[in-house]
């Protein structure tokens, strides 16, 4: 366990834009760790599930080297580990994925629709009003993004667009369907780091 003020944040590094998260976290003074095996999870104070392809990551996770990562994350999440999923990460966190039986961590009481906006041509940047981050709109970058079509009773909706929820929190779990790791605004990362209890 890291000392106060210097959290050790793991970033799931099987595939996706994990490097962008790591650079952002380090710019905020956090220590980071690439997570590629279940044994890498020991001792982390928080975990980020990055953007990427959820089917690819679920298949890699089922391989010998990565075996058991999802089970271990689920167990640590149930014990209160702060976990944040961006885009793909929100799919891995969701208990329900519309029309799919793909592998998942399945911790958060949300229903997610993959690729809700269509092909890349309909990907977009959109300023988002997220009161938890302050009055200034947050630059939302949506890349073949999913959307949360339903959230359970214990889930707080932090941001919405017409089609559904784009940011939500359930106790120690945070989901964003956009990519705060690719913009010059660290407020969501700061928000997540503030969820870590020492």
């Amino acid at each position, binding site marked *: 366990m890291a000392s106060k003020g210097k959290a050790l944040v793991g970033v799931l590094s099987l595939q*996706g834009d994990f490097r962008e998260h790591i650079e952002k976290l380090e710019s905020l003074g956090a220590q980071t760790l690439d997570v590629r095996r279940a044994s890498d999870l020991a001792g982390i104070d928080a975990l980020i599930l990055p953007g990427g*392809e959820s089917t*690819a990551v679920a298949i*890699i996770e089922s391989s010998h080297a990565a075996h058991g990562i999802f089970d271990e994350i689920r167990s640590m999440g149930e014990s209160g580990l702060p976990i944040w999923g961006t885009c793909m990460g929100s799919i891995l966190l969701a208990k329900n994925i519309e029309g799919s039986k793909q592998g998942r961590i399945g911790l958060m009481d949300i229903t997610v629709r993959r690729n809700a906006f269509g092909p890349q041509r309909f990907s977009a940047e959109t300023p988002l009003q997220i009161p938890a981050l302050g009055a200034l709109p947050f630059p939302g970058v949506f890349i073949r993004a999913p959307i949360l079509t339903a959230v359970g009773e214990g889930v707080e909706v932090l941001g919405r*667009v017409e089609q559904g929820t784009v940011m939500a929190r359930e106790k120690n779990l945070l989901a964003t369907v956009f990519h705060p790791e690719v913009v010059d605004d660290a407020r969501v990362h700061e928000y997540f780091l503030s969820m870590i209890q020492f």
Partner: protein
Amino acid sequence: MMNKTPSTNGHSTNGAEPKRGTLLVKRAFPQMLKGGVIMDVVNAEQAKIAEDAGACAVMALERVPADIRADGGVARMSDPELILQIINSVSIPVMAKARIGHFVEAQILQALGVDCIDESEVLTMADEENHIDKHKFEIPFVCGARNLGEALRRIAEGAAMIRTKGEAGTGDVVEAVRHARSIFGEIRRLQSMSTDERYTAAKNLQAPYDLVNEVAETGKLPVVNFAAGGLATPADAALLMQLGVDGVFVGSGIFKSGDPAKRAAAIVKATTYYNDPAVLAEVSRGLGEPMVGRTVSSLAEMELLAGRGI
């Protein structure tokens, strides 16, 4: 179906209009593919095999490069019918190839709903002087490069992703290695230069000064950089990853091998665990016959693809 464009695309909130096709949005797409394997496929069945093996995207083309070499003739964009079948068969992103300079093939691919266009030297060139003005498109492009100058010229034209050219369809990784080493070596040289030397460096690289200056400051390309061209084994993928690329394309190497599904899955794992020889040893075992391959040094000058579109 894909032409039903809602005016706000559903992103809008509190009157703020979503902006599509911006540089940020186009460059962010390949960022999500990093650490992954993009596989060449010629039909929906192969696309499904690729997805089930853990590909992070598929590349639709009418013939894999090894067959383009063997068959000869003019190589063009795939039949849109095949591309739509591939799009409808998988949930992962679908890329497709257009000929260098053939902006109408690119317009068609964008209208079909592909996620990214590869302006590719593997197809026959449509314009020997000019590449496509990629800024005019809403979807990102990936382009091949043999060195830093080529990479920066493509980025200036709007490419949102770079890959090494390698020598496609050979199963010989030597050119991909040469191109990756060239790009990273030239970046390191730029970083060691004083600022007044960067102007001449830009002249020598035949690349815009602003991009040269940016690379000298950051030590990396401003876009994602994959390896491609001749990769055929898990070890090839891990070699290029250790050299510093962000991910890999595998073309003929998978579907020209004895057991495509097994080899594809092994290359995916090798790309994640590229720094872990024990995993590489395990996934490399018993993969069946690799593609036969041709050494690049045995090819005649006119058979080389990498010199197209520099």
